């Protein structure tokens, strides 16, 4: 018998309609391994609306409710209220939404859900653009990235603005647990999902989710690009529990950002100067995380933030 490092149970079914190499498809697969079959998901319009396959089939082995793009936070508050009112035991209530449906049009409902301390997990899978509608920029699209609405050519240099700091916004609400997850690190991913499941209160998972057509790379590179995102410091892996930030993948040094950017067509136009600027950004972000990790609490503008924890954060490392 071989030893598995993540649960064998599959709650994503084959036959789904994701593009080959889809990061969000793999993310859902790993997520549900951590959350288990008594998960009730609410999901807005996003790529996963389509991936889950049209009526009369479903690609998920759990209960799933569709909701409008902007109301995932409210939907999971309602589901939790029903589960509590009807005293249905042992249910994990989860919102699963894209970056657009979370950080842009769904931000109000997310804020409401966190503020009223809904006992549920909100998952934002971040493919860094509106992909279901064909690669338009979102607030979570990184600076410099090409999208169909931030074209390259003429005066266009990709997205001029910086990526919205969704974790900063979420942490300002003092969730009981928040973490960054990356499917290229399956053990860490599943551990965080399973850990979130065991804590009561509002929880948030920020999931890195590479998208081959949207980021313009060849489908077999999804995992490697994810690894590079973390190892270059573009997407650090950490968790904030009990008000304490802890890096879950420590790096002795960052790989140069060029290794990450160079693999994706959406950054192909960047000049060395533009790359250098992005590199500086990433480095200062990484240093901030290191400081917060060392001091044990999220710093920066939220230095006073701490969470109303329901359970003590554990310190178990990835299996």
């Amino acid at each position: 018998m071989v030893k598995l490092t993540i649960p064998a149970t599959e709650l994503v079914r084959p036959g789904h309609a994701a593009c080959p190499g889809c990061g969000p498809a793999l993310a859902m697969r790993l997520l549900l391994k951590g959350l288990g079959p008594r998960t009730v998901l609410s999901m807005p319009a996003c790529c996963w609306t389509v991936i889950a396959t049209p009526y009369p089939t479903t690609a998920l082995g759990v209960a799933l409710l569709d909701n409008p793009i902007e109301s995932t936070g409210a939907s999971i508050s309602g589901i939790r209220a029903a589960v509590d009112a009807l005293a249905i035991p042992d249910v994990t209530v989860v919102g699963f939404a894209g970056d657009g449906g979370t950080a842009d049009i769904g931000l109000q409902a997310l804020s409401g859900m966190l503020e009223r301390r809904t006992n549920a997990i909100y998952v934002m899978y971040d493919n860094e653009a509106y992909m279901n509608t064909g690669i338009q920029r979102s607030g979570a699209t990184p600076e410099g990235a090409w999208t169909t609405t931030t074209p390259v050519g003429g005066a266009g240099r990709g997205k001029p603005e910086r990526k919205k700091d969704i974790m900063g916004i979420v942490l300002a609400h003092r969730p009981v647990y928040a973490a960054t997850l990356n499917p290229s690190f399956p053990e860490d991913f599943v551990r965080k999902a399973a850990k979130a499941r065991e804590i009561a209160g509002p929880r948030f998972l920020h999931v890195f989710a590479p998208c081959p057509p949207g980021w313009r790379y060849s489908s077999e590179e999804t995992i490697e690009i994810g690894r590079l995102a973390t190892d270059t410091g573009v997407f650090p892996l950490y968790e904030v529990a009990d008000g304490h930030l802890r890096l879950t993948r420590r790096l002795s040094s960052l790989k140069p950002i060029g290794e990450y950017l160079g693999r994706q067509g959406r950054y192909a136009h960047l000049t060395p100067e533009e790359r250098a600027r992005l590199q500086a950004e990433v480095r200062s972000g990484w240093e901030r995380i290191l400081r917060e990790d060392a001091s044990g609490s999220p710093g920066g503008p939220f230095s006073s933030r701490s969470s109303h924890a329901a359970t003590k954060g554990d310190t178990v490392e990835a299996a």
Partner: protein
Amino acid sequence: MLEIRFHGRGGQGAVVASELLAQAAFLDGKRPQSFPFFGVERRGAPVTAYCRIDDREVRLRTSITRPDIVVVLEPGLLRAGSAMEGLKPDGILLVNSREEPAALPAPAGVRRASVDATTIALTHGLGTPMMPIVNTAILGALAAASGAVSLGALEQAIDRFVPAHPAENRAAARDGAAAVRVAPPLTAGHSRGASSAVARAPPLELPDAPMAVASSATIATAAWRTLRPEIDQRRCTRCNFCWKFCPDVAIELNAEGFPVVHLEHCKGCGICAAECPPGAIAMVAEG
């Protein structure tokens, strides 16, 4: 009026091919119409596009269910079965394939044509082996095999409307026209493939609420694939990386812990091969 239906996969350019054909027909002095099937297009998923060409204004705004010509951008799509649906008995089937046209399955009466558009496209640097951009090569073949448009008009349309590599695309169209092969129709006794009858489904019985309970596992996504993983068990260390990373839940571990690929669901993304530490998985082209 000529009705042409294109079958490709998301990202392959079937919709662009149909539009280019319409542009070319217009340059020929015809009244064309082209539109995609309004579905949710995922890269690799089968997609359909329609083109009508007439001397007068086209007065139909419906999908094409009885095409005169069916163009298949990739032979794997013939596996999905629906490509030939409704094709007229005296119609034309044009497939991007290395095979001789005589080997193509088709209903009786249908003229069969094939062209190796993939090789032509790659020769001219169009696309990648996993996703070659074959639409201009196959349009050249279509012009030569059917006369739906002139090759001259097609080249002109490419020049005007293809932003990337127009010269290479024009060359691909010319090569496609030169390389297309046509086989005589099969007689009734020897026909294979889908019948040309358009199926009529009975009225649906639906539950009150739109609640889906069937499993997507009944949906085969094999036709999305252009490459197939082949696992060399002798080199496999049973690390199960391929299983962990497959986004399509297409790999299962057998009792001994060796990975088994479920080809009906594998989309050929190549992740398993890329992530296999000992390099025991190779991606090989689908025939």
